[in-house]
């Protein structure tokens, strides 16, 4: 299987043109295999949430918590679903023609790309100035949480260590991967607007050299096929029974008090009424 496609330029040079579309199938199959593997594993393993007696104790300690805890504000939810729509539109328009479903995809693709770009720009501003910016990032400080979560996953229910703050570690790692891949497809996609007729910029493929275009197309393709696997994983987790409470929160905005205490560390995700009762 070739990973990259090459061509001979008019000047006789060997130039990159794009990734091999075999990689699309690799990403698709990889995503589906992960889905099967994880689904199989979950048949024999329960997600390690906090034991019920401990939740009862926490609930008594934190009587000030409301029945519903806001998890995603309205604006954040609108952003999420707009971005999801744009991403699915991008994947459908990019890859259906490759699997043989022929339609006029280019215009829909770049328009969906503009929608994605606009939504991401909005998200950056919104997250920077109106949300808890650092709550989604991953860093060395998360190593104890990673260690605890791994131990709980393999059956050590009594494993010490912190529980997640607002976003579980898996969420934050996924966000990191999507951010890297997303910014790469956006940056390369904006450059590629000069290769097609959009009415926004004048078509001019000579703004960059052939090798630079080759790298641009390869990056766009690699990140694009990467998104196939990422989106499969995302939809899979969103639909898993033990994760549905997160999905509902992305629709309705809130989670229950019990869910808040079962899955999160109230000292790491501080919300209204989450402090302990003062005796």
């Amino acid at each position: 299987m070739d990973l990259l496609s090459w061509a001979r330029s008019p000047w006789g040079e060997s130039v990159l043109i794009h990734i091999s579309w075999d990689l699309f199938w690799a990403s698709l199959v990889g995503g589906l295999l992960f889905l099967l593997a994880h689904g199989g594993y979950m048949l024999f393993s329960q997600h390690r949430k906090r034991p019920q007696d401990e939740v009862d104790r926490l609930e008594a300690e934190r009587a000030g918590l409301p029945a519903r805890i806001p998890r995603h504000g309205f604006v954040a939810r609108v952003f999420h679903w707009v971005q999801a729509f744009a991403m699915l539109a991008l994947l459908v328009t990019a890859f259906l023609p490759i699997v043989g479903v022929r339609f006029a995809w280019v215009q829909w693709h770049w328009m969906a790309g503009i929608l994605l770009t606009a939504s991401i720009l909005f998200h950056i501003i919104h997250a920077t100035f109106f949300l808890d910016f650092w709550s989604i990032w991953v860093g060395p400080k998360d190593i104890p949480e990673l260690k605890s979560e791994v131990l709980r996953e393999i059956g050590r229910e009594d494993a010490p260590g912190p529980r997640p703050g607002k976003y579980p570690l898996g969420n934050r790692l996924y966000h990191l991967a999507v951010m890297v891949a997303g910014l790469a497809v956006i940056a390369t996609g904006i450059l590629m607007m000069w290769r097609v007729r959009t009415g926004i910029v004048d078509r001019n493929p000579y703004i960059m050299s052939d090798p630079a275009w080759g790298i641009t197309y390869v990056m766009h393709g690699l990140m694009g096929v990467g998104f196939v696997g990422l989106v499969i994983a995302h939809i899979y987790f969103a639909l898993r029974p033990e994760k549905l409470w997160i999905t509902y929160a992305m629709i309705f905005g809130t989670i229950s008090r019990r869910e808040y205490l079962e899955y999160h560390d109230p000292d790491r995700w501080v919300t209204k009424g989450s402090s302990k009762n003062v005796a």
Partner: protein
Amino acid sequence: MPPIRDVMPAFELFQPGSVTDALGLLDRHGADAWVMAGGMDTFDWLKDRIKKPRVVVDLGNVSELKGIKDAGGGVEIGATTTLTTIANDPLVKERFPLLAQAALIVASPQIRNQGTVGGNVSQDARCWYYRAGWPCYRAGGNICYADTPTAVNREHAIFNADRCVAVNPSDTAPALIALDAEFVIKRGSAERVVPAEQFFIGPAIDITRLTILRPGDLLTAIRIPATWAGKGHYFEKVRDRMVWDFALVNIAASLNTSGSTINDARMVVNGVAATPYRLQAVETFIKGKARDKATADQAADIAVQGAATLRHNAYKVPLMKALVKRAIRGDAEWTS
């Protein structure tokens, strides 16, 4: 290393004697097989070593694919019938002079003697950037060399360009669409019949092909119904020189008239888009109208709506308008 010219690469040659055998070969060799009828498009590709098929299936010995026969007031033309045969056929000349004229004006007498109608409608784009073997979109690359600020694009598209701006070069294709023809395509034991208009594909749908033919498909016949037999026909081709040249723009029109009123029409222009460009808005507009200068002028304006010109092909807009006017008015365009 510079490209090697005029020496064909080695390939395995098959010369089947029947459609069944030809289909069997195409099925067996799939995308490795190259279908050759008259060879007028094939030899350019092979001699320039731009295309290097492993197998060539020469249809020259398949007699079933040759000839013209009456078909209930229309005609059925075998796909490898030569253009000269079509241009001289009494039945075609009597019923569908539009097609006879289109066939008669293709290239040169020698090419018409060898070239076939199936090959003429199936031929590949003539964009020289593409034919030179450059890695353009149509060749599987990621650039259109003809649509750049410095490109030489006098012959290229003014409609429906989608990354690639190459045009369909066929003369008989617009005539067949104007006559509402159907193309018979066989694949293995299956047969499908598609309207001529749907035989062609633009770059928005598939940037590497001009037709719906896939590996394993064989165009076997073209059927023209009686619908437009004996009606008013008009064909005109504008080219840089009067022999052996592709159309800058050509037009084919079938008109059903009562006196000076147009009852129905089909008009198709080629050389302006990657597929023969049917003027449906014009057809709708002129229905029920007088075949006069006012109608022709308005129709010409409608015809070029949506044209997007390149650096060197803006002339195609007034040229196309002139052809539409002439097609509607016929000889009267010259006298009033």
